[in-house]
């Protein structure tokens, strides 16, 4: 019996020939990620581990302060201070404000993550790097502390659900729509404890940005990890960020899957997830009239340059509805620099958007755009839970960047066709 890509990567890191779904293995970890929140708790825990003084592999220990940075208030400033001190004293990789952005954009862009690795992170969207053919998953702070200390973590080998997308994507349809549609089909716990392996001709031309978005949101179906097989698009991306030494793994043709899901991607329209659970999806055309107060475009789910281009394409020559606040949050400093180069910054400013520094801010109702009572927000982020972006009574609708931009212009949930014509297919 063959093995899946996920099983092969875990076996290789457990020093074994093969592993079976369900068994628990100790694996070597290549990269341990922490943001300021998970790091703060992990540091406390690390200091309690008797015999642990130094991080075993400081090169592989990455710290990205992003949730409440630039520091929101004195409490978070102190917390970040504590984390910074620890990271620097341990000679780990510390990404200071101004050189970084949101963790899940920062790691790929700095060539830190790549195919065949085992990556764990104190953040549930650590699943993002599966887009590059890595095993990558979110863990808690105790896991982070222990991985710093011993270089290993425990994992239950997940069974795999194979999701295959057939056909050619329609205009305006992106990785975000594919994953929202899939979560709608599978439900939010349809893939709990499982690996989600993405396949199909519909993904052949999907840019890295769309793949990152899909892997990022695989957790929203409960998955342990989401994973793509590396191809030319992956290799080209890795070359561009200077990640050149890696091992590619592939699922065997006779690998065993827990479940096979076939999706006719050619019929999918841009999707929108209604409050307050990401599985509550429907085509934008069936949204009805939903007037909105705020739009957020960007963050770790859709903060890539491709996303910014799409949103800018829709916004060009238009103005955000005067009753709406449109906040653009590039995924990283790198993306923001590119936005300036390409003239996107000007388009956003001319259309009355505010462009924020790269931070998690609004996505977790932290700062930089918190929602008030009963406000409605169209957001390209990944979670629409009650209270996620502010007040408990606020409502969050998840969508792709073009839909979000069109909604900002229209003052209500809108299909991009209402505002602009699609760019050439693909």
């Amino acid at each position: 019996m063959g093995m899946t890509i996920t099983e092969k990567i875990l076996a290789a890191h457990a020093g074994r020939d093969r592993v079976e779904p369900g068994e628990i293995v100790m694996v070597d970890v290549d990269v341990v990620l922490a943001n300021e929140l998970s790091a703060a708790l992990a540091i406390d825990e690390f200091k309690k581990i008797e015999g642990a003084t130094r991080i075993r592999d400081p090169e592989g220990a990455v710290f990205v302060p992003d949730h409440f940075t630039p520091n929101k208030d004195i409490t978070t400033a102190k917390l970040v201070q504590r984390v910074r001190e620890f990271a620097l004293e341990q000679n780990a990789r510390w990404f200071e404000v101004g050189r970084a952005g949101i963790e899940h954009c920062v790691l790929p862009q700095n060539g830190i993550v790549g195919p065949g690795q085992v990556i764990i992170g104190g953040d549930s969207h650590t699943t993002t790097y599966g887009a590059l053919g890595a095993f990558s998953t979110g863990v808690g702070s105790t896991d982070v502390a222990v991985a710093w200390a011993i270089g290993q973590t425990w994992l239950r080998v997940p069974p795999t659900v194979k999701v295959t997308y057939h056909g050619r994507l329609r205009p305006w349809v992106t990785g975000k729509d594919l994953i929202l549609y899939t979560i709608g089909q599978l439900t939010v716990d349809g893939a709990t404890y499982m690996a989600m392996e993405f396949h199909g001709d519909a993904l052949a031309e999907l840019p890295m940005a769309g793949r990152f978005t899909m892997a990022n949101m695989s957790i929203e179906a409960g998955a342990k990890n989401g994973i793509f097989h590396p191809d030319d698009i992956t290799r080209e991306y890795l070359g561009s960020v200077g990640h050149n030494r890696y091992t590619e793994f592939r699922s065997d043709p006779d690998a065993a899957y827990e479940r096979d899901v076939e999706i006719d991607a050619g019929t999918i329209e841009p999707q929108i997830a209604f409050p307050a659970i990401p599985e509550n999806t429907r085509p934008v055309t069936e949204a009805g009239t939903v007037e909105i107060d705020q739009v957020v475009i960007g963050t770790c789910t859709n903060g890539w340059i491709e996303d910014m281009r799409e949103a800018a394409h829709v916004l060009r020559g238009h103005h955000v509805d005067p009753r709406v606040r449109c906040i653009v949050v590039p995924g990283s400093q790198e993306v923001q620099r590119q936005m300036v180069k390409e003239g996107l910054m000007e388009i956003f400013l001319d259309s009355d958007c505010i462009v924020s520094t790269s931070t998690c801010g609004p996505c977790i109702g932290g700062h930089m755009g918190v929602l008030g009572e009963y406000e409605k927000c169209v957001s390209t982020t990944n979670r629409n839970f009650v209270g996620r972006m502010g007040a408990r009574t606020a409502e969050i609708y998840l969508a792709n960047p073009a839909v979000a931009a069109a909604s900002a212009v229209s003052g209500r949930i809108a299909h991009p066709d209402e505002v602009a014509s699609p760019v050439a297919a693909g």
Partner: protein
Amino acid sequence: MEKLRGRVWKYGPNINTDVIIPGRYCHITDPKELARYCMADLDTEFIKKIKPGDIVVAGGNFGCGSSREVAPLSIKASGIGGVVAPSFARIFYRNAINIGFPIFESAAAYEQIDEGDEVEIDPDTGTIHDLTKGTEYKAAAFPEFLQTIMSRGGLRGYAEEELARQSAS
């Protein structure tokens, strides 16, 4: 481990970490303070009405959402003795084990136990006893490796042994 005994507070499925401990409180690391906001966006009365040792019984996929370890930490610090649910979201599951907070997987218990029932749970055997109704349920046993971690009070104990072993060899 000692037996748990308390009254049941019951909630539905897909209770996510954002309602267990909202993002705006996630910079807090002091357990006592975390406890004050436990379940803040699910049930604003929660922290006032529970007593130490009480048990939460909830629907499937409990603890879905973010990786925040403060979620199980805040429940543990609130005094809740343990959580019973048909299934747990995976990061919550591992966080609970890693911090030594008792959780029990049982669909039948969720279906039949009502709010206000008095229950007793034996963590070693996974037996859940509804004293009000006189019924009994058996939670799925933890894999051996996880039992080892729990018996050492969490993952830290495991790491310490591993470090000691490495420095000895």
